[in-house]
């Protein structure tokens, strides 16, 4: 098991704020039981730090999108859940990674450790273009507060 650096939505969006307007792709690893909290953190920090509404969808939404780069470039930051790997998802991320890159947006991919490790092995083109792979945890400052 590879041990990636840890982050929170607050720290991640601090980075995204600095790099606004520049293409970036982050693979975020998180146990599935924490996804809901982490997703709320990501949406809230996108709103507070960048003043944008973060679209957060399953990766399969891109399979139905005729213009991949167009979809991603409509938003400054987009997030996608990768719940499981299929041939279509692998092809989308690996074969068509250049189209994602052309979007110029900042893309976040949320995945579990197991799925992320499979993804990194099976998608060399995607892997080589990743800005970073990070373990993301629920924001400890927020504690038990939920909006």
């Amino acid at each position, binding site marked *: 098991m590879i041990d990636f650096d840890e982050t929170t939505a607050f720290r991640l969006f601090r980075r995204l704020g600095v790099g606004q307007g520049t293409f970036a792709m982050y693979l975020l690893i998180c146990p599935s039981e924490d996804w809901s909290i982490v997703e709320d953190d990501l949406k809230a920090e996108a709103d507070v730090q960048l003043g944008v509404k973060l679209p957060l969808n399953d990766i399969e939404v891109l399979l139905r999108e005729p213009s991949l780069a167009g979809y991603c470039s409509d938003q400054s930051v987009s997030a996608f859940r990768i719940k499981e790997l299929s041939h279509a998802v692998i092809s989308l991320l690996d074969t068509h990674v250049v189209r994602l890159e052309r979007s110029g947006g900042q893309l976040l991919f949320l995945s579990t450790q197991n799925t992320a490790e499979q993804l990194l092995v099976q998608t060399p083109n995607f892997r080589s273009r990743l800005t970073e792979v990070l373990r993301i945890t629920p924001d400890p400052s927020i504690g038990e507060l*939920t909006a």
Partner: protein
Amino acid sequence: MSLEDELKELAWHREGQYQAALDSAIQEHPSNLLRQLRAYLAELADHGKLKKTYEGPRSFAKENDVVELICEGVEFSSDSVLDFNLHLSPSQMGWRLRDFEFHLAIAKRRVQHVRIHLTAKGAYDPLRVPRCHIHVDNSEPHIPFPIINPRLTLHLVCEHIEPAIGREPE
């Protein structure tokens, strides 16, 4: 009516306005307020006004659903240090600010402390202790202070009070 009674009536009127301001000032959810305060401090750090980026305030759940937000030891580049905490309580309308304390320890100046307090309950003698007040240094006078959004109070402390107060005239 004696002069003192008239002054007391005026002070009670001001306390009533404070209460009305608190009742009408529905705060955003504490988690969002925390994120806003933290993002603001991060921006100050980006501009070199603070020594580092802070991950706080931290939140704590208290009795009766009261939420406490605490931020301690925020260090300015000037070596001044800010601590603050605030309490919010839920109401049918949303979240209400209950009380707060902003304590600024100012480094290397004639004035060494500024403290801004909102008390949870009004004092017995509102002429002497307004519910929301500011102390300059360790002085006893409780100078009335307006009840404003904590984000505005933080801004006032960080960008106006800290840089200017107690400086020698040029």
